[in-house]
Each structure stands twice: as structure tokens, then as C-alpha cells.
């Protein structure tokens, strides 16, 4: 609780006690005072003055603001309307009600303030990735605590165990485990050693590190993320814009309704006091605060929940689009697949074993830097002494020849074996690159290498379809046979292959046209060379781009790790946020409309009106905070 809130609470309690004393007094001692003395309404005036005490105590701030508001020409200000409504109640002789309404209004405001403060607190917690200081190592070798913003690029920083990495950099000394949960939502720690790049916002494990900074603080990942989350509310969704426009007309209309209600019906049916009293309920309901707070708060909560899950959404409008996805267009390499080559099949010919085949192939390829050679070496997994290999000879576009343990090994594509007239078993695996191996002139087997489809890709695509995405399309520059094989494995509806980067934009435009009137189109890519498509689609989603500035710049949604399963998760969060925002709009409007009607009919009094104002706001805020949880 802030100081101001404590003061407010004390006032409410004091006024509440006095109010109840007055009520008791009115019902007991009140009877002893004559109702009128001559023509003077004695009892009413005495209790008016008595109720004025708690009213003044609890309502002072409202009255003060109302007076200041009139001075500034702010006649439709909430405080002014509240003051007017309660003064109207006093004028019609409803002393206790006027006082009670002010009291309950302030209690409602207090809760509203408290709830907003709580939500601000939970949002601030999300922002706790911001480093407070950096341990700068000076020339004398001693560390000094400085503001991260004052650290020049290329400085040496000490990261003690448990501290946040303040600035992006490279590890110089030390080995440790980094907790990236605050950035990626991933709870498995990442191990780092000298030479590895580290990202600001990660929390160091239990060993000290020294790093050399590569950037300034303001260009570091953590600063970029914070700026993005803070600015996210500036890009407003259609729902928020609607509420802002609605709020602008709502208050004047309800106030006009109040004026009409106060003066028109009495012309026909008389009873001026009763109609003024009813008009006062209108004035109390006329504040649009419940809507104006709760809808943006819902979106903010949704953005907060996404960032907790390692999904950065750059604006409420993108959250809205995510909830309305008609098509998801994805890149292949690095998005649906791992983006690295791995050995996926080893087929030795008799009498060789898989291990032996891999050994010979890996040994023969040991001099090569080709990604395929690297994949074979990795599959073999053990270091091979160079002394066992001799006479390695590369054949460009064919493969490699080498002598391993005195045996003549040949590893390469089909053409290499055919040229040497070696009979072999052809492998019909369209998505694979196949390396054929021959030993001493005889066929020894084949090794298939492919870019592995991510284990969660098929599940993620199925989940997207379950969530109502009509079509998932894969765009790739790769060969058609590879594209089709991956498409089949992952379960995408359509695969468009052999595309140049500029073709991808044209293709995306066609898909956008297709979806016009149906919903939004999202593009998912790794952000490396698909920036134009990322920008062209309704929602550009970059993934696996932690620390990649270009992708963070171009995309609307950034997935911090490279898990495609985060996309259905983002859709779910977006849907939930939209649902809660809608619930709040419908709930607030329905309650307000109901109380307006009942108030006009004289059924609902000022009490109900106060509930329709601050009570609804508090409930809507609490509902909006559900967006933060997932």
C-alpha cells in the first residue's frame, strides 16, 4: 500500500464509523427532535449537518477535484459528476444515502487503486530481467559496481554466481550454467564456456564468469525486450480503439440522459425531487473507467503472459491478429526442421556393421569441412587419430577417396561409385542426401543425411489446426522432393518448393488475398533472410532469434527459443486475452445498461449505481489479471 492509499483507508474507516453512529442517532435520538419548527424543517437540517461530517471526511478529495475541475472546464470529470450526484441526493433530503454513496464510491476507488497497484506490481515482476548494476573490471583488475548504461562496448565484466548478465557478450573465463527462464520460458539451464556468446537477462549459475561486452546496454537483448514490452501498449488493438472512442461519447450521452431525466418527466408527472434523485444515479454510472482500465489491462496481461512463456508480442494489435489466424505460413529450414544436417540412416552391406561403416566413412571424411562430412563425424562420435588415414583425395562434386587402416575407402555420391564401376544399392529416400561408401572396390553401404524435422513440429502443426487455423503452408527454397517429404512428415496442408526469396513474398501475397475477409495470415521464419515476408504478412513471427537484432526489428512476434510449439501456445494466450477483454466489455456494458434502465424506472438507487461504477471496475480488473496466468 502506498502512503496515499493508507491515508485514504484511514479516512474511509473514520467516516464509516461516524456514518454508522449517525444512522443509529437518526433512528433513536432523531425521533426526539421535532420534524418541523414553524416552517423550518428542523430535523432534516440537523441531520444534514451531521451527515455532512463523514461525507466531508471521506469525500474531501472528490470535492476538491470537482472544484478544481470546474475551474479547468472539466465538467464531465468523474469527481465532478460524483459530487453533483451526492449533492443532488442531499438536496432531495436523502442525507444518509448521499453520505453512504460517497463512502462506497471511495471504498470502490480504494479497491480499484489497490487492484491496479497489484497488477502494476505483477507487470513490474516481468520486467525484473533488467540488471541493476554491472561489475566492471578496471585496469587494476578490481571489479567496481557501475550502472550498466555506463559500460562501453568491449569492457570486461565479472558475473558473480546468481547475478544477472547485464550486457550481451562473450565468455572469457569460467564455465557455468545459465538460467534463461526469464527470457525463453525454458527451465533447462544452458551451459556456457569460454568463447560462447551470452545474452543479457540470463541468470548465472554457481560459478563466476568474466565476459567481454559486445554491445552497449541499450543495444543489448534485455534493453530491447524491455523497450518492446513497454511500447507494446502503444500499438493498440481494434478492441482498445473501439473502447477509447466509445468512452468519449458514452459520458456525454449518459450525462445528457441525466439532464433529460431530471427535467422532462416532472413536467408531465410532477414530483421534481424523485426525478432529480433518479438522474443522480445516471451521473454516477456515467464514468467509463471500468472499460477504460480493464480492456488495455487485459491486453497488457496477455502480453505479459506471452513474454513469461518466451514469446514477445510487440503490440496488442498482434495479439488480436493471433487470435484470428486463418493461415500459418512457415519457412522450412530452421523452423520446421532443425536446420542442421544429421545422419538419419546407416545401411551397411554384409558383412560390415553400422559402427564399422560409420568408422570408415568418418575417417575418410575427416579432412573435409563440408556440413555432410561434419554430420558423419558427429554420428561416429569418437576422435579418429590422423595417423590411420593417408592419401586423402577430394573429388569436387563427387566425394572423397582415402586410405584408412591400409584399406582403400571411397565415400561420395552415386556418380562417384558409377565412375568406378562399383555395383551398389540405390536408396530411394527423396528427403535425404545419400553418401555411398565402397571399401577396396566393393560396395560397403550407404549413409543417409538429412535436415531433421523438429520432434515437436508435427504436434505443433496438428495443434494449430485443432485451434482452427484453416491451412498451414510451408514455403521453401529447397528441392521439391525434400519439401514434399518434410511436408508429409509434419502434416502441413501445402508445400511450395524451389522458391527464390522474392518468390516467397509473391506467394505470401497470394495467401493474404486468399485469407482476405476470413482472418489473419502469420508467417513463421528464423528471420535470417525472410525479413520481407515477415513484414508483409499480418503477423510476422521470428523464432530462434534470441540476440538476432535484425529479426527482433522485423518481426511482430519474437519467439525466444526455436520451439515451433510456442506458436499454438501464442494462439492460445491470444484467444484467452481476447475472450477476457470481451467478457469485460460485455459485463461492464450490461451492468451499466441494466442499472441505467432500472435507475430511470426508479428501481435501482444510488447504491446500485456505485456498484455499476466502481464495483464493476474492480471485478473487471480482477478478471483482466487472469490474462497474466497461463
Amino acid at each position, binding site marked *: 500500500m502506498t502512503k*496515499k492509499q493508507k491515508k485514504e483507508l484511514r479516512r474511509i474507516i473514520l467516516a464509516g464509523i461516524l456514518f454508522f453512529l449517525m444512522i443509529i442517532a437518526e433512528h433513536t435520538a432523531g425521533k426526539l427532535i421535532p420534524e418541523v419548527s414553524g416552517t423550518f424543517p428542523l430535523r432534516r437540517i440537523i441531520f444534514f449537518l451531521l451527515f455532512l461530517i463523514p461525507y466531508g471526511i471521506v469525500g474531501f478529495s472528490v470535492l476538491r*477535484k470537482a472544484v*478544481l*475541475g470546474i475551474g*479547468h*472546464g*472539466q465538467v464531465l470529470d*468523474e469527481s465532478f459528476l460524483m459530487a453533483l450526484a451526492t449533492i443532488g441526493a442531499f438536496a432531495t433530503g436523502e442525507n444518509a444515502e448521499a453520505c453512504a454513496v460517497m463512502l462506497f464510491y471511495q471504498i470502490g*476507488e480504494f479497491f480499484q*487503486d489497490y487492484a*491496479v497497484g497489484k*497488477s*502494476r506490481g505483477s*507487470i513490474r515482476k516481468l520486467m525484473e530481467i533488467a540488471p541493476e548494476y554491472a561489475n566492471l573490471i578496471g585496469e587494476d583488475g578490481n571489479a567496481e559496481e557501475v550502472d550498466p548504461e555506463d559500460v562501453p562496448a568491449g569492457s570486461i565484466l565479472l558475473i558473480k554466481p546468481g547475478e544477472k548478465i547485464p550486457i550481451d557478450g562473450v565468455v572469457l573465463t569460467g564455465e557455468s550454467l545459465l538460467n534463461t527462464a526469464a527470457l525463453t520460458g525454458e527451465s533447462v539451464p544452458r551451459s556456457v564456456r569460454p568463447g560462447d556468446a551470452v545474452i543479457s537477462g540470463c541468470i548465472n549459475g554457481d560459478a563466476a564468469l568474466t565476459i567481454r561486452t559486445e554491445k552497449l546496454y541499450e543495444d543489448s537483448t534485455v534493453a530491447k525486450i524491455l523497450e518492446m514490452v*513497454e511500447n507494446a*501498449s*502503444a500499438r493498440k488493438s481494434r478492441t482498445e480503439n473501439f473502447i*477509447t472512442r466509445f*468512452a468519449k461519447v458514452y459520458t456525454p450521452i449518459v450525462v445528457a440522459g441525466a439532464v433529460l431525466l431530471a427535467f422532462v418527466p416532472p413536467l408531465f408527472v410532477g414530483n421534481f425531487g424523485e426525478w432529480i434523485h433518479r438522474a443522480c444515479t445516471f451521473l454516477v454510472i456515467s*464514468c*467509463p*473507467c471500468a472499460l*477504460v*482500465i480493464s480492456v*488495455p*489491462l487485459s491486453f*497488457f496481461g496477455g502480453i505479459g503472459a506471452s513474454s513469461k512463456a518466451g514469446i514477445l508480442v510487440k503490440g496488442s494489435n498482434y495479439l488480436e491478429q493471433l487470435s484470428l489466424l486463418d493461415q500459418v505460413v512457415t519457412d522450412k529450414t530452421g523452423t520446421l526442421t532443425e536446420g542442421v544436417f544429421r545422419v538419419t540412416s546407416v545401411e551397411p552391406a554384409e558383412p560390415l556393421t553400422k559402427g564399422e561403416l560409420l568408422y570408415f566413412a568418418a575417417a575418410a571424411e575427416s579432412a573435409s569441412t563440408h556440413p555432410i562430412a561434419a554430420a558423419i563425424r558427429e554420428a561416429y562420435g569418437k576422435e579418429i587419430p590422423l595417423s590411420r588415414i593417408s592419401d586423402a583425395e577430394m573429388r569436387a562434386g563427387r566425394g572423397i577417396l582415402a586410405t584408412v587402416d591400409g584399406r582403400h575407402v571411397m565415400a561420395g555420391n552415386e556418380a562417384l561409385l558409377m565412375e568406378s564401376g562399383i555395383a551398389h544399392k540405390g536408396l530411394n529416400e527423396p528427403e535425404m542426401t545419400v553418401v555411398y561408401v565402397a571399401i577396396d572396390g566393393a560396395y560397403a553401404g550407404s549413409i543417409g543425411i538429412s535436415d531433421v524435422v523438429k520432434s515437436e513440429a508435427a504436434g505443433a502443426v496438428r495443434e494449430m489446426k485443432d485451434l482452427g487455423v484453416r491451412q498451414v503452408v510451408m514455403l521453401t527454397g529447397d528441392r521439391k522432393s525434400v519439401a514434399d517429404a518434410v511436408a508429409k512428415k509434419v502434416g502441413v496442408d501445402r508445400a511450395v518448393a524451389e522458391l527464390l526469396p522474392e518468390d516467397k513474398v509473391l506467394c505470401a501475397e497470394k495467401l493474404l488475398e486468399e485469407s482476405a475477409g476470413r482472418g489473419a495470415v502469420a508467417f513463421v521464419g528464423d528471420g535470417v533472410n525472410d525479413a520481407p515476408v515477415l513484414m508483409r504478412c499480418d503477423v510476422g513471427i521470428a523464432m530462434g532469434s534470441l540476440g538476432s537484432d535484425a529479426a527482433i526489428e522485423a518481426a511482430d512476434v519474437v519467439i525466444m527459443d526455436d520451439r515451433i510449439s510456442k506458436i499454438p501456445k501464442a494462439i492460445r494466450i491470444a484467444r484467452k486475452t481476447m475472450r477476457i477483454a470481451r467478457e469485460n466489455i460485455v459485463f461492464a456494458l450490461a451492468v451499466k445498461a441494466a442499472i441505467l434502465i432500472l435507475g430511470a424506472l426508479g428501481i435501482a438507487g444510488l447504491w446500485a449505481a456505485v456498484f455499476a461504477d466502481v464495483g464493476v471496475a474492480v471485478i473487471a480488473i480482477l478478471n483482466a489479471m487472469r490474462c497474466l496466468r497461463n
Partner: protein
Amino acid sequence: MKKKFNLEDLDCANCAAKMEAAIKKLDGVEDASVNFLTQKMTITADEARFATLMPEVVKVCAKVEPDCRILL
């Protein structure tokens, strides 16, 4: 040139929206946003004009929401 300011005692979301609208109307302000949740105000204007602009911003904000203070 964009500048950020912290706000104190910004209690009402509707007032934040009103403040934003009022600041946007000031001569020399290119863009303004008042964030009720983070209690921050961002103003885009020509750098040279900030010095003369800020007192005006403070004035219009005080009109809308007398309790709210801009931490300059």
C-alpha cells in the same frame, strides 16, 4: 526526438486517455502517449522545443488530473 517521463499518482485510466489527447493537441508535439499501467509518458517533439514545451505539458496535465505529477 522521443522522451520518456515517469508519472506519479496517475490513478484513473480515463484521465490518462484524456491527458494523452490534451498533450497531442499542443503545438509542437508530434506524438504523445500516456501509459496508465507503466505510469510513463512518451512525448515526441523537436528536441529544441522540449524546454518550452514541458511547462505547457505540465499545465494541461494538471487541468485534467490535478493529483498526477510529472517527474521531470
